[in-house]
């Protein structure tokens, strides 16, 4: 791929022939995907399709066994320094929030700006407060995660990722651990983020979110991309029988 010849259309994030394997069992086979700046891509598909594994390969939480990850024109190498450079630019939101339970919301959000980016604490605190305000939780700044609802915890986790001012945000089934009502407030936060132009890759089972918020939907099954298209098109008029079967099953539930 010769991105440098086409700086105007260069994708912000590119996955090129990415495979993910656990021990010797490959769960993602040769996936290539490009994400433009400001684009929201939803990854959908049945459990075990390799969506989460693919997402986690992007920031090397599961290092790809083959293939390349290119962020903003720079290929990510295997060195700790290269990985840290990538992870500074890529925010991650987990299914189970993974907030630090012994720290307050504010401390959770401040931690990485201070210790990863080296921002002075006073400034980082201001930035963290901005992000907590952003997700509507300024009044919970001094509360520990254990005292917050699941939806609030996930929004704190989003603020924590945003405080790094990432170029891309990855969401790994961010509402799967939440009941529908709490999930809705998280989805609203994500919707607002998308409207602000954040580049997002979202693994989700929320079909409405995929259809309404994503620009593009990628359907995966058995570790491969089966079909991808503009969100409205793929959701309303899937071409591949496997996609049709999945969407029918999900909708008739």
């Amino acid at each position, binding site marked *: 791929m010769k991105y440098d010849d086409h700086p105007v259309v260069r994708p912000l994030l590119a996955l090129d022939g990415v495979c993910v394997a656990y021990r010797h069992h490959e769960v993602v086979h040769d996936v290539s995907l490009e994400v433009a700046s400001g684009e929201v891509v939803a990854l959908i598909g049945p459990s075990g399709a390799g969506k989460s594994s693919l997402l986690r390969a992007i920031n090397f939480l599961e290092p790809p066994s083959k293939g390349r990850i290119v962020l903003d024109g720079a290929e990510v190498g295997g060195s700790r320094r290269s990985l840290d*450079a990538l992870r500074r630019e*890529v925010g991650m939101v987990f299914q189970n929030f*993974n907030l630090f339970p012994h720290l307050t919301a504010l401390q959770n959000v401040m931690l990485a700006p201070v210790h990863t980016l080296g921002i002075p604490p006073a400034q980082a605190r201001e930035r963290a407060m901005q992000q907590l305000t952003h997700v509507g939780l300024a009044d919970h700044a001094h509360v520990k995660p254990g005292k917050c609802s699941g939806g609030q915890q996930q929004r704190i986790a989003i603020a924590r990722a945003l405080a790094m001012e990432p170029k891309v945000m990855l969401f790994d089934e961010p509402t799967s651990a939440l009941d529908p009502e709490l999930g809705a407030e998280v989805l609203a936060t994500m919707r607002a983020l998308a409207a602000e132009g954040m580049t997002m890759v979202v693994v989700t089972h929320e079909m409405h979110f995929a259809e309404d918020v994503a620009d593009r939907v990628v359907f995966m099954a058995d570790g491969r991309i089966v079909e991808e298209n503009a969100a409205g098109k793929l959701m309303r008029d899937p071409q591949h029988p496997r996609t049709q079967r999945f969407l029918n099953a999900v909708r008739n539930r």
Partner: protein
Amino acid sequence: MGTILSELSAGIAQTVEITLASFVVAAVLGLPLAVLRRSGSWWVRLPAVVVVEVLRAVPPIVWLFLIYYSLGSTDQVRLTTFQAAVIGLGLIYAAHLSEAYRAGLDAVPAGQWEATRALALPRAQTYARVILPQALVVVVPPMATFAIALLKDSAIASVIGATDITFHAVQLTQQDLNGLGNFTVAGLLYIALGVPFALVARAADRVLSRRLVGV
């Protein structure tokens, strides 16, 4: 009884000092041992495993003799009995404590490590700010148990001549032949000294658990 007590009290300070000093050595050295034992590379893990196993396999009294008669009596180094006891007991308990630390580190959920990696948090900060505060809650109760065990094991320092409670009990018995009385009082003294350890441990446990759950 009163006279025995006043004779043996001369050793209380030494017993407490050996216990506390050894515990500090053990608490400080145990942590790197635990971290090394969790390394992903076998060549980092192996030396730590060997050190821990050797320290635990040899009886404490043998370690104390070894240290005292090697390091303690060369021309270059001349350790006091107190120093030899603290080094020996400190190292042995570092091995024991490393197991407690390891259990504590294992108890921190994988998601916590993942979050720190996703945030590119440097390793030192990951341990200091995220992992250890959570591991500590799990480590404190077994640590207290080890502290009390150390208090009792400190009695073997008397065989190399450290002037602790047991040393004084032995001395006194050689004079008055009242072994039963002297060692009964010695035993009671160890029980009494153990109580504060248990209380401090319980209080620490309460405070730490509350900090974790949050306000």
